[in-house]
């Protein structure tokens, strides 16, 4: 029973939430704003400035002084980080396997482990001799064969494809196997 609510919820799990990012950015900006607010209130009460009055803050930031340039550099880093957070796709490293009863969201780490397992079985090596890296569209399987026991990369690649084909993953994932030139004693 995959209702539109379930489909949408499963698709949302493929993207990372930015709530922690927003909380950190708001707290940082809030701290800077709090300093300006305190100085503004002190000016309104007729008290001497704590560090620099409102007019002095504006003059320092815009005056090209070392302090102003430091503030500018921090603001630039903050602004770029925030814009990156707002505009980047925010992929969570997960894939969706649709099913009639319920969609299944699979972490790329789980896929990598499963592909390593299939590759080790196909190559007849120990699991520790296989490493799999899952990128956006492709999984790279690296096998270090046991010395004296050649491994055919095409067989390993086929085993990996067969292992994930029934899942009909979205985004789809192609597998590529690479056999190391030097073997390992095992």
């Amino acid at each position, binding site marked *: *029973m995959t*209702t539109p*609510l*379930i489909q*949408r*919820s499963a698709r*949302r*799990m493929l*993207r990372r939430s*930015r*709530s922690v990012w*927003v*909380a950190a*950015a*708001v*707290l940082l*900006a*809030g701290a800077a*704003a709090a300093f*300006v*607010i305190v100085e*503004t209130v002190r*000016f*309104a009460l007729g008290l001497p400035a704590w560090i620099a009055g409102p*007019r002095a803050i*504006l*003059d320092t*930031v*815009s*005056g*090209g002084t070392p302090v102003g*340039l430091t503030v500018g*550099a921090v*603001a*630039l880093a903050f*602004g*770029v980080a*925030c*814009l990156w*957070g*707002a*505009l980047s796709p925010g992929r969570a490293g*997960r894939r969706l396997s649709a099913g009639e*009863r*319920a*969609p*299944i*969201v699979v*972490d790329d*780490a*789980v*896929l990598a*482990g*499963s592909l*390593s397992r299939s590759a*080790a*079985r196909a190559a007849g090596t120990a*699991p520790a001799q296989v490493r799999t890296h899952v990128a956006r569209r492709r999984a790279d399987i690296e096998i270090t064969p046991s010395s004296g026991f050649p491994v055919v990369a095409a067989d390993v690649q086929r085993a990996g494809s067969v*292992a994930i084909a029934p*899942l009909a993953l979205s985004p789809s994932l192609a597998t590529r196997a690479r056999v190391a030139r030097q073997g390992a004693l095992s």
Partner: protein
Amino acid sequence: MSGGGRRTANRLALATLGILGLGVALVAAWPLLVPSAGGPLPVADVVEDLVAATGLGAVTVAWIAAAVAALLVLLAVLWALAPRRGRIRSAVETEGVVVDTAVVEGIVRSSLATASDVLAVQATTFARRRGRWVRLKVQLRPRADLADAVARVRTALVDLDAALGVPLPAVVHLTTGVRTALARGRRVD
């Protein structure tokens, strides 16, 4: 606010803060970026002109600006730190019968007890305007047999439907975690 609306608002908040940050950086770097401009941007003079144009005294404008800024900061911090909403305890409420999420978790865990690659099961129910749904987080062993794990999870969902008598809207999440890092992989035969 719905989950999707909240995510859009998060992106808008980040974009707004990003543009503000770049604006401050531009003002600070102006004397270096545009030496031909003959000096820094007259930001303080512009602000003083704006204050004079309001017809209010500088002190009054300072009070108003501080109050508005404090209110905005307070609202922003409260909004950013607000707890995630939408999680509820009951997974099913039908004809006066309430089934707790822990019961759902127990049924699925029991079904998967003999699945050698499954380390842990955690159920969480979310309430949305259009209904509620359950996220079943299943932690797997390192190098788990994915096809077998998926088949076992699908069987567990059939068991769950049979036990509850109603098909529960669910999303399954096959994942790793601390227990995965501490567990050993099964032997590859």
